[in-house]
């Protein structure tokens, strides 16, 4: 079947088998930033924004996503300008192997789009479905807070 997905702002017709997941379809379409870690919703590496909400793309049937707006990690930057989250992850040492990073960034982007001034606990809650084995999460939490601060204008401390 053919479904229509708007991916990172561009609408396109996409071929998908009836039982395929959004993860498989996105990677086949070239969005390899969307990672496969478990294919069972347990690790969050596959997270994308679907209609503005972060979801496990391995749990979404492509056939039910017809017409959806999808944002992947490839769509976070604005051309050459990195998203404040991407900048902060780099500055804080929050990227080690980088495999969980796309999913983390997506979950964090969802959080900050709704809650521009989260507590540390709210940040941890937002990334609670993104497993990481390298970092111990500490620098990811501080990176997300750094980004939030920059996005707020950076002055309130």
């Amino acid at each position: 079947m053919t479904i229509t997905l708007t991916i990172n702002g561009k609408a396109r017709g996409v071929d998908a088998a009836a039982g395929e997941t959004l993860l498989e379809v996105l990677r086949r379409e070239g969005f390899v930033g969307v990672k496969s870690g478990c294919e069972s919703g347990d690790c969050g590496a596959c997270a994308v924004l679907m209609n503005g909400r972060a979801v496990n793309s391995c749990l979404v049937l492509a056939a039910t996503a017809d017409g959806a707006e999808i944002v992947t990690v490839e769509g976070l930057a604005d051309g050459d300008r990195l998203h404040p989250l991407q900048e902060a992850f780099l500055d804080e040492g929050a990227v080690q192997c980088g495999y969980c990073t796309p999913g983390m960034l997506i979950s964090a982007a969802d959080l900050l789009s709704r809650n521009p001034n989260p507590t540390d606990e709210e940040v941890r809650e937002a990334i609670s479905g993104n497993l990481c084995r390298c970092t111990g999460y500490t620098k990811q939490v501080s990176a997300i807070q750094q980004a939030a601060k920059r996005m707020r204008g950076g002055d309130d401390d």
Partner: protein
Amino acid sequence: MALHHVESVVHPATLEEAWAEKERRGKTARLVGGGIDVVLYSPSTVSTLIDLKALGLSRIRETATGIAIGATATMTEAIESPALKAYAGGFLVRVLREVASPLQRNLATIGGTIGSAHPWSDVIPALLVLDAKLAVYDGEERTIPLQAYLEGRRGEASPIICTIDLPSDSASSRGTLASFTRTGFDVALLNVACCGRVAGGTWEDVRIAIGGTPGLAARQGAAEDALIGNPATSGTIAAAANAAAGAIDARDDLRASAEYRRTLARVLVERCLTEIVSGTEGGAG
């Protein structure tokens, strides 16, 4: 992973169409809410998926008799709904906040969660102690207690869930859930939901459900009856907790032993009931 055995996905526009598809295809069809359990647990005999999202069953609103949660409303939509914010002191919202991860809550539907009826579900015991009913459709519209739906699931012709109806007389109750997990992002080894009202130091109303035994959540009628009308003291609470723990069909599985589950049931019932009495509900695990 792709479901290789699925050949088609249909998107019925009305309940009649949806039910007709379901009847026609029997066991080869499966209803899809958020789709999580469809992706994870569909047997290879399923070849058609019936997507319910086009049926307009996502609204959450106050009604004359309480609150109606559309079956395809996501957990996140329920958490954010103004209607549920104050209901039973925000009990259901608190429960939903802890389920799975935000990624899954953005996808999972309340109706889908009930339809899957996982024994570890936190939502089902919470709805049981709220005395939730389901407006369902199976050729005709009916309203049935949640318990009846769960018991009837083993049969072939489970109806389509349209709304989850929360009664207005639970609105002023206090509710709390203790879900005992291994890590923060996990399913319960055992969970306990309690809802009730204490007036003048006496249990006016109390409801207890225990799930993950590892069986599906069920109300603990005997323990409830022993409390209602009686003083709300640590003694009656302890007795009720003992009774409830003794009544569950606890079994071993890879997550916990039967004996530990019985211990947990007693401790968590006691803690939940104590929270309700003291007005400090919000996480007893």
